[in-house]
């Protein structure tokens, strides 16, 4: 097949060439690519750990790896996926690319700081990879003390330093977004004309800014206790291990919202575009993002129901955890209402978006089971918990990420991918995901604990199903990697607005020029102005007349 040339015009990709022009770039769009390549790398590293875990669990005995290696595998899987893939994925890739474009700015407020964030992320990643190469860590991604600070013989300090460093990348990205959204909006882009993707990123940034420093100082204290034998969390030295858990979850529960909120932002863009409808309850979806960020800071104690926290604290945290379900439910209901009587087209991004609604709903509702004190006593630390948070993180965050990548790929590259293959991959991922994780709900309910490499033989059937699903899932993830790379050269030329969407980012050529817009757009209307009667007509945010 012959490659169709893109139109001869200068854009951010061909403005300069060579490694230096990429590694020293301050263009937010190029930095998004740096992140895209690095988070993809870490995603597949984390995937290799997951593959080994699932292979070991194929049989009840420990035949592939022994307990010690297994502990390291699930720890490295969790650390890689959470700190080096999920947290930076949507904000640092799609957010970096789109936040300035969607609000009509030429770049983020602090472009050099943005590049510095990427380097900080990479340095943190190298520390963690070095720890993995030196033998790994076996504490679980939660680093519970005093095991992590005194007893573990693995590379805790090196890993903790890596995560500490990476945290600053997250903080600085959040800071950049907050300042950009406050100060860099184009004329006419009022707060309630902001795309919901921006609201979601604003809420995410608040969590990054206020939560991440706490995990940073917590990990410093763990490292100090480990290296200098300060008694801060070790009960043998008069310390309190529960204090560690409080401080850890004060960040790490909101961190779940760092992962899911941006995906919810993507979701709002996809649903409106492919249903050709205004967002139902725009202001409620926008406010619910902020509500999730705020309430999300008050629910951390639900991770500690069985760890010796006071029962009364447990009751309060249980209640607060129920509260955070309300803004999440508001979003789901509003998306569903947006779909109602919409003119729906099942393009690949939309398949991910619809998958997201279903999977996130299952993940969210099972979260309510876990927020219920009595039920949590039964299923705490079982595969029920594993299934629950994978429905949120993979079924929610990764589906949102994949949907977003497929939606904005033509904008980022100027080319479309093979649509049929993309739909096939989306369906494969959906089926593979459910086959992997639904059996784990059952396993957990039947009592299979997490973090063991052996299990009673009666659990084997469900574990084999889960491993089979993981293989399907792996195929689903490798497919896009292949056809997206293929499309860089051979994909059909996309044009400015292949999905006929309304956002400002679609009103500039694909790929965009370095300054994003030839002239600063003036915003004249609300987002998602899709007239219900004329599905093909759009009212772009930056245009006076409809196109």
């Amino acid at each position, binding site marked *: 097949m012959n490659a169709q040339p893109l139109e001869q015009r200068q854009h951010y990709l061909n403005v300069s060439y060579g490694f230096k022009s990429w590694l020293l770039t301050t263009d937010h769009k190029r930095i998004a690519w740096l992140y895209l390549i690095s988070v993809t790398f870490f995603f597949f590293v984390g995937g290799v750990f997951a593959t080994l875990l699932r292979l070991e669990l194929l049989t009840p005995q420990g035949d592939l790896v022994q307990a010690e290696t297994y502990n390291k595998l699930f720890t490295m899987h969790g650390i890689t996926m959470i700190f080096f893939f999920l947290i930076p994925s949507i904000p640092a890739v799609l957010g970096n690319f789109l936040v300035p474009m969607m609000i009509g700015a*030429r*770049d983020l407020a602090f472009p050099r700081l943005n590049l510095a964030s990427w380097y900080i992320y990479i340095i943190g990643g190298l520390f963690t990879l070095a720890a993995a190469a030196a033998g790994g860590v076996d504490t679980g991604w939660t680093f519970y003390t005093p095991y992590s600070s005194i007893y573990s013989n693995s590379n805790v300090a090196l890993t903790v330093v890596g995560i500490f460093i990476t945290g600053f990348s997250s903080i600085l990205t959040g800071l950049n977004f907050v*300042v950009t959204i406050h100060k860099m909006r184009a004329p006419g882009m009022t707060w309630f004309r902001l795309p919901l993707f921006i609201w979601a990123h604003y809420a995410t940034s608040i969590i990054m800014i206020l939560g991440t*420093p706490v995990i940073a*100082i917590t990990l410093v204290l763990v490292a100090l206790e480990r290296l200098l034998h300060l008694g*801060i969390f070790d009960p043998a*030295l*008069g310390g309190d291990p529960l204090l560690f858990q409080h401080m850890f979850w004060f960040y790490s529960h909101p961190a779940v919202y760092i992962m899911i909120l941006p995906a919810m932002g993507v979701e709002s863009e996809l649903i409106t575009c492919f249903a050709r409808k205004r967002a139902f309850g725009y202001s409620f979806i926008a406010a619910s993002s902020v509500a999730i960020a705020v309430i999300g800071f008050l629910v951390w104690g639900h991770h500690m129901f069985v760890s010796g926290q006071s029962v009364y604290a447990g009751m309060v945290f249980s209640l607060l955890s129920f509260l955070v379900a309300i803004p999440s439910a508001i979003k789901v209901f509003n998306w569903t209402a947006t779909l109602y009587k919409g003119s729906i087209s099942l393009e690949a991004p939309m398949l991910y978006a619809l998958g997201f609604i279903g999977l996130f709903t299952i993940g969210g509702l099972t979260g309510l089971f876990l927020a219920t004190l009595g039920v949590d006593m039964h299923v705490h630390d079982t595969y029920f918990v594993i299934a629950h948070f994978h429905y949120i993180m993979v079924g929610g965050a990764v589906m949102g990420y994949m949907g977003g990548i497929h939606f904005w790929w033509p904008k980022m590259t100027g080319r479309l991918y093979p649509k049929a293959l993309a739909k096939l991959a989306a369906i494969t991922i959906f089926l593979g995901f459910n086959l992997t994780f639904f059996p784990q709900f059952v396993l957990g309910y039947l009592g299979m604990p997490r973090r063991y490499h052996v299990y009673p033989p009666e659990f084997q059937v469900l574990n084999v199903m889960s491993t089979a699903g993981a293989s399907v899932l792996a195929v689903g993830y490798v497919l896009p990697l292949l056809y997206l790379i293929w499309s860089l050269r051979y994909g059909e030329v996309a044009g400015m607005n292949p999905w006929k969407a309304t956002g400002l980012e679609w009103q500039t050529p694909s790929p965009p020029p370095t300054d994003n817009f030839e002239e600063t757009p003036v915003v004249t209307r609300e987002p998602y102005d899709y007239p219900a009667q004329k599905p093909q007509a759009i009212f772009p945010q930056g245009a006076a007349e409809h196109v």
Partner: protein
Amino acid sequence: MSEANLALAHQFDDPEQQLDASTTGMWVFLATEVMFFGGMFLGYTAYRLAYPEAFADASNLLDVWLGSINTAVLICSSFTMALAVHSAAEGRRQKIILFLILTMILGAIFLGIKFYEYYHKYEEHLIPGENFTYAGPSPRQAEIFLSFYFAMTGMHAFHMIIGFGLQTYLVIEAWRDRFSAAYHTPVELIGLYWHFVDIVWIFLFPLLYLVGRHL
């Protein structure tokens, strides 16, 4: 093109937007700093509630005079920093340099006294860890107090050293005549940072040095 426009980055429309963005950025950064120190303040609070007597006893190990002198020194340095910002707003280059250097001297005095205190603790085997010796009751709990003392004042001193570096950068830039009444954002931002570091100490001083004295 005026001098102010020379320093305008391409992503901004005008100097006012740039100044606004930079200042907002600094305030947001300081919010993250509050949370960062907040973690240690939380730990301190938890253990002080758990071990009030041990904390009071161990607090008496600290030299309240040196702590008070340092508090005064740091407040003076905030004052000279404020004068440096004021001089920058008036575009008076020599005064910026003078007040920055005064601030740095006061900062150095603070750090000098701090490290003298640390050295003294080292000589008395009061550094938490293997060689820790403490004659009073509940040595373990006193050790926790001292762990927080070193972690919190150490992190504070680390921030001061960074501030020292930033002020050196400002002196060089002022020397090269980079600032004017229209453009002196870095002086303002680093001023904010310096005041923040000062405020942290204002909380650390009573929490660490004065606990024993009010019982």
